[in-house]
């Protein structure tokens, strides 16, 4: 989306050092800020959760101290557009590409359950369950870009008007 074309209701732009202790503050800020203008308060919680998971990933996979994490949240009438950027290695970007491809190839619930199962066998904190969670809980479309300077940008497009996840099929 070209931000200049959107009739933005919300615009958030944050940059911070990749310290884990900042995440909860950012999550709380995002939830409170969005809740001001969103009738569906639970949706604000879901978007804040999504931002939280994407920032956690950005910090886990950052490869350089002192490089900023950047997040941008824009909304129009239909969607929230969340972009999270961090510096990473070519190998980590390839891994992200593979995981996103796997997650996006399945229905959201199936992908989330698969990642839940796989997470038990994961020996570190990089189980990628968070991406599948974001896709399922927020009904987001997730993709990424990687530039020549080593910055990976993860984009999540979260629809506003689909209410919460329907559990009818569960």
């Amino acid at each position, binding site marked *: 989306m070209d931000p200049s074309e959107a009739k933005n209701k919300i615009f958030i732009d944050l940059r911070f050092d990749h310290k884990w202790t900042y995440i*909860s503050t950012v999550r709380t800020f995002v939830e409170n800020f969005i809740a001001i203008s969103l009738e569906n308060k639970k949706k604000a919680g879901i978007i804040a959760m999504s931002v939280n998971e994407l920032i956690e990933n950005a910090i886990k996979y950052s490869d350089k101290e002192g490089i900023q994490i950047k997040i941008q949240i824009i909304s129009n009438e239909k969607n929230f557009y969340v972009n999270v950027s961090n510096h990473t290695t070519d190998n980590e970007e390839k891994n992200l590409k593979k995981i996103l491809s796997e997650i996006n190839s399945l229905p959201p619930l199936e992908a989330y359950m698969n990642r839940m199962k796989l997470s038990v066998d994961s020996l570190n904190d990089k189980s990628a369950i968070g991406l599948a969670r974001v896709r399922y809980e927020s009904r987001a479309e997730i993709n990424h870009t990687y530039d020549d300077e080593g910055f990976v940008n993860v984009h999540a497009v979260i629809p506003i008007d689909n209410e919460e996840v329907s559990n009818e099929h569960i």
Partner: protein
Amino acid sequence: MNTFNIEQLHFENADASLENDKDGLTLVISGDIDMRDTSVEFLPYLLKVHDALILNKIKEIRLNLLNLTFMNSNGIKSVINWIMKSSELPEENQYKIRIIPNTDIAWQDSTLPVLRKLFPDFIIIEQA
């Protein structure tokens, strides 16, 4: 305090305590589970509860999440690890987890049913 002498745990932005009440044994988790590595304190606490349940042949525990406002995916991973421990036991030693949710909290409303689908024989979700 509870009959198993498992003390209340405060870790970062969350609290966990095991309580004997009129409905039996209840694990109360509140606050925000948002630490980077939940295997340091949170998972060991869950596994301590697991060991107490096995030792005392308890068949059901209530999990009170009414004031658990956030849980990151690492926290979910720890909960899955806990449930797996019960599912891997011989049937006569297994126990069920009866979750008391707060459906006003978005993540609980969406993720808890997925956990139940993943472990239908071990998770019960109380209706509000």
